[in-house]
C-alpha cells in the first residue's frame, strides 16, 4: 500500500477513472448511433408504409376518377383524378427514394412504378376515348375492367411493400431494446467507475493528509524532546518541512541565531539563515546542500559552512542535515548544528591533550622498558623531539656532589650539535640556572633575551624558544629536562614538561636506587660469602634453600649438595627424623635469640653450634634463616680459659696464701715482737697483699659476669634481711672509721640473688664510709612500689663530678687515681655491682652534688606476691 507514493496513486486513480469514463462514453456513442440509425430506419419503414398507402390511395383516386368520368362524362368528376395524377409522380419518386437501400423494396417500388405508369396511361386513354365519344358506356365499362386487375396487382405490390416494412418494423424494437440495455449498463458503469475512483483518490489523499499531520505532530514532539536535550548540550536544532519551511527551532538554536521559534515558523530557512557564505556571497536554494537533503534523502554533514544570525552576522557551524521520513517518504529535514569556533578550540585542546598523553605514555614506556637509564632518558628525549616538536631535547642528571649537571639523554631533530657527554656546572647556562633556582624556565630567544653563551648556535640553528623544567624527587633535585625549539613555545610546552618531569625524576631516582641496591646486594653478597659465620636458609618445609661458603665449610657439604635437600641431613640422628618438629622447636627456642644446638657434618661428626634464627619473607613464601657459629672450637677455648682462670687463680692464691699468712702472723706479733719500723713495713706488706687478693677476686668475678658463667641464685629475699647481712659485714669497718650507718628499712621483698645484692650494698656502704669524714653518718634507705624496689645509700662526702657519674661504673675508673691506693679499692667494685644489677634486670646509678655528698642507688624488681615473677625467670632462661 505504501509502496506507491500518493502522487502516483492519485494519478493512477484519475487515469483509471478517465479511461473508464472514456470507454463508457465511446460505448454509449456507438449505441446512440446505432439507436439513431435504427430509429431512422423505423421512420423510413413507417414512411414507406404511409407513402405506400398514399400511393394506393392516389392510384385508387385515378381509377375512381376515370370510372366516374366514364360513367358520367362530366368533366368535374375528373377533379380527384387530376389531383392524384399531379401528386402521383412525386409520390412514386418518394417511394422509390424511401425504398433505396432495400433491394426488395426497390424492386417492389420499381414494379409499383411500372404498374402506376400503366394505370395512368390507361386512365388517359380511357378519358380521351370517352371524350371523343368513341366509347360508349359498355365499352367503357369493359375498359374499366382492364384496370381492375391492374389495381389488383398494384394492391398486391403495395401489400408486399407494406409487409416488407412491417417485417422491418417489428424486427427492430427487439434489436433496439437490447441495445438500449447495454447502453444503460455501460453508461451506469462508466459513471460509477470514475466516481468510485474519485472516492478512492479522496480517501488516499485524506489518509495522506492525516498521516502527515500525525507525522508532523510526532516530529514536533520528537524535536521538542531532542531540543530539550540538545538545548542542554548547546547544540542548535531546527526542522523544516518538505518545502524548507521552519517547523521547529530549539532554544539553543534560537540563542545562536537570534530568532525566536515563533518568528521563524513557516519561513524558509535557507533564505533566513543559510543564504550567504562566510565572505558574504549569496547562495541559492538550488545549491543548498541542506535543501538537497529534502530532494535526495541523503544525510548531509558539513563542518565548513556558516549560518547567518538575525543581525546579519555569520558564524561557523558544523551541521548535520538529516531527512525526516514518514512511510519511506521525505516529509522534512532536521538540521543539528554547532558553533564550531568553540568546538574547534575544544578539538585543538583535545588534540593537545592527546598529544600530551601520547608523550606521557612514550616517556612512561621509555622509563619502564629501556634497559639502562641512559637508554631510557635517550628515548624520553626522542619523545620530546617527536611529540613536543622540539629541535633539541636534553635530560641532565645532577652529579653526586650536586655541582655538575651531566647530560644523560639527548635527541636532536637534525644533526647533534654537541656530544652525548656534555657537562654543565650548576648555575651556569640555562640548564644550570634551572638546577640552581629549581624553577622551570620558558624563554623566547627572539625577544633579545638570548644569552651570550647560547646566542650564536641558537641563532645559527634558528632556535626561537627554550623551555626547561627541574627534575625533583621528594624535594631533592635530581636533574633538569630541557628543550630548544624552532617554533615559539607556550606555557603548554612547560605543562608538557611538567607532566613528565615527575616521572623522569622518579625514573632517575629509581635507577639510582636500583644501582645502589645492586651495589648493596653485591656488598651483601660478598659479606655473606666471606663471613665467618655460616648462613643457611630453609623454607617452611625445612628444605634448604641457600647456604654460604662458611656454612659449606662448617657442614662439609658443597652448596649444590645441600640446596634442595631437607634440613634433617644437618641434624644429628638422635634429634629424630621429623625436621618439621625440629624447625618448630628451633622457632620456639631460637627465633631472635642465640641458642646452642648440635649439628651433623657430612663426615657424620656431631658438633655444637650457636644458632641465631630469623624469619624473612620472599616472593616464594616464608623463609627461616640461621646464622651458625661452629663453637666446637670455641668450646674448647672456653674450657681452656676456664682451666686457665682456675689455674691462675689457684696458682696465684697459693703463694699469696703463704705470704698473707706469714705477714699476718708477723704483724699479729705471735711470732715475737717486731721492732716498730719492722712492724710498720710488715703492715704495709700485709695491706698490699690483701689488696692484691681482692683485685684478683674482683678480676675473676668480673670475668665470670662477662662470660655469663656466673650462677645467679634467685630467691625470695626480704630487703630487711639484705640490710641485716650488709650491716654485719660493714659494722666493724664503719666503727673503725668512726662513721655512723643509719638504716631505714622496708617490708618489701624482692626476687633476687640476695648474696649478690648484699655484695652490692656492702660495696655502696663501704664506699660511703670510706669517703665520709669521721663522725658523719651514712644513710641507707629503701622504698618500693609495685614494680621496683630502690635501695639508696647517701653520704655527705665530697660528691662526684658530673663527668664521672657514668664512668665510675666502668672498670678501674675512680674519681681520683689516688683513691685506689688511699682507700684500698680495686677500681672494679662498682663495675661488678653494675654487672650484678644487669643480671637482675635492674639498674644502678648515682645522684650527686659535688661537695655535698652522693646517693648511690640500685633498683630491682619488687616481688608482688609469693609467686615467682615472670620477667626475671625469662631473663634467667635467656642467659643459660
Amino acid at each position, binding site marked *: 500500500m505504501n509502496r506507491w507514493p500518493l502522487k502516483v496513486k492519485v494519478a493512477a486513480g484519475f487515469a483509471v477513472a478517465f479511461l473508464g469514463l472514456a470507454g463508457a462514453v465511446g460505448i454509449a456513442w456507438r449505441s446512440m448511433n446505432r439507436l439513431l440509425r435504427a430509429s431512422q430506419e423505423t421512420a423510413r419503414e413507417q414512411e414507406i408504409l404511409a407513402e405506400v398507402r398514399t400511393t394506393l390511395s392516389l392510384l385508387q383516386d385515378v381509377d375512381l376518377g376515370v370510372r366516374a368520368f366514364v360513367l358520367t362524362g362530366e368533366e368535374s368528376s375528373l377533379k380527384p383524378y387530376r389531383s392524384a395524377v399531379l401528386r402521383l409522380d412525386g409520390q412514386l419518386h418518394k417511394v422509390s427514394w424511401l425504398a433505396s437501400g432495400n433491394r426488395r423494396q426497390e424492386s417492389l417500388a420499381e414494379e409499383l412504378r411500372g404498374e402506376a405508369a400503366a394505370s395512368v396511361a390507361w386512365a388517359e386513354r380511357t378519358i380521351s376515348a370517352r371524350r371523343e365519344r368513341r366509347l360508349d358506356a359498355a365499352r367503357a365499362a369493359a375498359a374499366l375492367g382492364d384496370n381492375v386487375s391492374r389495381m389488383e396487382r398494384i394492391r398486391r405490390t403495395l401489400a408486399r411493400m407494406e409487409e416488407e416494412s412491417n417485417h422491418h418494423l417489428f424486427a427492430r424494437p427487439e434489436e433496439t431494446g437490447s441495445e438500449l440495455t447495454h447502453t444503460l449498463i455501460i453508461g451506469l458503469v462508466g459513471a460509477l467507475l470514475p466516481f468510485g475512483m474519485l472516492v478512492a483518490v479522496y480517501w488516499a489523499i485524506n489518509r495522506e493528509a492525516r498521516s502527515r499531520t500525525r507525522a508532523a505532530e510526532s516530529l514536533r514532539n520528537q524535536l521538542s524532546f531532542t531540543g530539550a536535550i540538545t538545548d542542554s548540550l548547546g547544540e542548535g536544532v531546527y526542522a523544516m518541512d518538505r518545502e524548507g519551511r521552519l517547523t521547529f527551532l530549539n532554544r539553543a538554536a534560537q540563542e545562536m541565531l537570534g530568532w525566536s521559534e515563533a518568528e521563524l515558523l513557516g519561513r524558509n530557512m535557507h533564505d533566513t539563515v543559510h543564504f550567504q557564505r562566510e565572505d558574504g556571497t549569496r547562495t541559492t536554494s538550488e545549491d543548498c546542500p541542506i535543501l538537497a537533503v529534502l530532494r535526495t534523502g541523503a544525510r548531509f554533514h558539513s563542518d565548513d559552512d556558516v549560518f547567518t544570525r538575525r543581525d546579519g552576522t555569520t558564524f561557523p557551524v558544523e551541521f548535520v542535515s538529516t531527512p525526516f521520513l514518514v512511510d519511506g517518504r521525505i516529509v522534512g529535514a532536521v538540521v543539528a548544528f554547532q558553533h564550531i569556533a568553540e568546538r574547534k578550540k575544544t578539538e585543538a585542546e583535545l588534540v593537545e591533550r592527546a598529544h600530551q598523553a601520547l608523550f606521557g605514555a612514550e616517556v612512561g614506556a621509555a622509563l619502564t622498558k629501556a634497559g639502562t637509564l641512559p637508554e631510557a632518558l635517550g628515548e624520553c628525549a626522542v619523545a620530546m623531539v617527536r611529540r613536543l616538536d622540539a629541535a633539541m631535547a636534553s635530560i641532565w642528571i645532577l652529579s653526586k656532589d650536586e655541582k655538575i649537571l651531566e647530560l644523560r639523554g639527548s635527541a636532536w631533530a637534525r644533526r647533534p650539535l654537541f656530544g652525548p657527554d656534555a657537562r654543565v656546572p650548576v648555575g651556569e647556562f640555562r640548564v644550570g640556572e634551572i638546577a640552581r633556582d629549581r624553577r622551570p624556565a620558558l624563554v623566547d630567544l627572539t625577544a633579545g633575551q638570548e644569552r651570550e653563551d647560547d646566542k650564536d648556535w641558537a641563532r645559527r640553528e634558528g632556535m626561537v624558544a627554550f623551555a626547561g623544567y627541574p627534575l625533583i624527587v621528594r624535594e631533592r633535585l635530581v636533574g633538569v629536562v630541557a628543550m630548544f625549539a624552532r617554533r615559539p613555545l607556550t606555557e603548554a610546552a612547560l605543562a608538557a614538561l611538567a607532566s613528565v618531569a615527575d616521572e623522569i625524576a622518579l625514573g632517575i631516582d629509581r635507577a639510582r636506587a636500583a644501582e645502589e641496591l645492586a651495589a648493596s646486594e653485591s656488598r651483601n653478597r660478598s659479606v655473606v660469602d666471606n663471613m665467618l659465620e655460616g648462613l643457611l636458609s630453609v623454607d617452611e618445609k625445612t628444605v634448604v634453600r641457600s647456604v654460604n661458603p662458611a656454612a659449606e665449610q662448617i657442614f662439609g657439604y658443597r652448596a649444590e649438595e645441600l640446596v634442595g635437600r631437607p634440613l634433617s641431613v644437618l641434624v644429628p640422628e638422635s634429634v629424630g627424623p621429623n625436621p618439621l618438629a625440629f624447625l618448630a622447636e628451633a622457632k620456639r627456642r631460637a627465633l631472635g635469640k642465640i641458642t646452642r644446638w648440635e649439628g651433623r657434618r657430612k663426615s657424620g661428626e656431631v658438633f655444637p653450634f650457636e644458632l641465631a634464627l630469623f624469619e624473612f619473607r620472599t616472593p616464594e613464601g616464608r623463609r627461616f634463616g640461621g646464622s651458625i657459629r661452629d663453637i666446637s672450637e670455641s668450646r674448647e677455648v672456653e674450657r681452656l680459659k676456664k682451666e686457665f682462670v682456675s689455674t691462675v687463680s689457684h696458682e696465684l*692464691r697459693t703463694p699469696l696464701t*703463704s*705470704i698473707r*699468712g706469714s705477714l*699476718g*702472723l708477723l704483724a699479729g706479733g705471735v711470732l715475737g715482737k717486731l721492732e716498730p719500723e719492722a712492724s710498720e713495713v710488715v703492715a704495709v706488706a700485709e695491706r698490699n697483699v690483701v689488696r692484691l687478693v681482692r683485685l684478683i677476686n674482683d678480676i675473676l668475678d668480673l670475668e665470670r659476669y662477662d662470660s655469663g658463667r656466673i*650462677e645467679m641464685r634467685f630467691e625470695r629475699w626480704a630487703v630487711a634481711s639484705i640490710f641485716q647481712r650488709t650491716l654485719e659485714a660493714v659494722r666493724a669497718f664503719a666503727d673503725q672509721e668512726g662513721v655512723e650507718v643509719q638504716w631505714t628499712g622496708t617490708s618489701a621483698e624482692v626476687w633476687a640473688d640476695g648474696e649478690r645484692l648484699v655484695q652490692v650494698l656492702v660495696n655502696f656502704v663501704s664506699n660511703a664510709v670510706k669517703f665520709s669524714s669521721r663522725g658523719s653518718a651514712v644513710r641507707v634507705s629503701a622504698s618500693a612500689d609495685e614494680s621496683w624496689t630502690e635501695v639508696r645509700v647517701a653520704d655527705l662526702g665530697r660528691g662526684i663530678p658530673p663527668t664521672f657519674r657514668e664512668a665510675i661504673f666502668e672498670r678501674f675508673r675512680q674519681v681520683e687515681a689516688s683513691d685506689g691506693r688511699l682507700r684500698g679499692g680495686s677500681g672494679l667494685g662498682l663495675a661488678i655491682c653494675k654487672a650484678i644489677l644487669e643480671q637482675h634486670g635492674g639498674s644502678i646509678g648515682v645522684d650527686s652534688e659535688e661537695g655535698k655528698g652522693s646517693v648511690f642507688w640500685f633498683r630491682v624488681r619488687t616481688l608482688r606476691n609469693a609467686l615467682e615473677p615472670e620477667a626475671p625467670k625469662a631473663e634467667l632462661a635467656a642467659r643459660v
Partner: protein
Amino acid sequence: MKVLIVDDEDDIRRIAGLSLSVVGGMQVCEASSGAAAVESARREAPDVILLDMMMPGMDGAAAYRALREQPETAATPIVFLTAKTVSSEEASVRALGARGVLVKPFDPMTLPRLVRELVNGS
C-alpha cells in the same frame, strides 16, 4: 682441739699450722695428700679436718668421700679450704655436706676462731 691440715702445699700447711697452734693453741697434724689425709685421720683421730679442695691425685671431694666412708672418720667435722676459683665449687662443697668453707688466702690471726666457730656450729 686437734686439727688435721690437708694441703699439698707445704708452705700453706706450715702457715695454717702456725696460725692454729700459735694463735689458736690447737694441736696440729698434717697430711700432704688426700690419701695421706685418710690414713692420717684414721690414725690421729682429729677433732676437725681442714681439707684443701684442689690437690693432685685424690682431690678434696674424693678425700671427703673417702673420709666419710672410713668408720673412724665418718663423723669428723670437715672444713674445706678453697682458693675460690669457681663459684660452683663452693656450692658443690656445701652439697657434699661439709661443715664449712674457708677461703684462701686466709687471715692467720682469725683462722683459729673461724675454725672453732664452724666446729662448734655457731
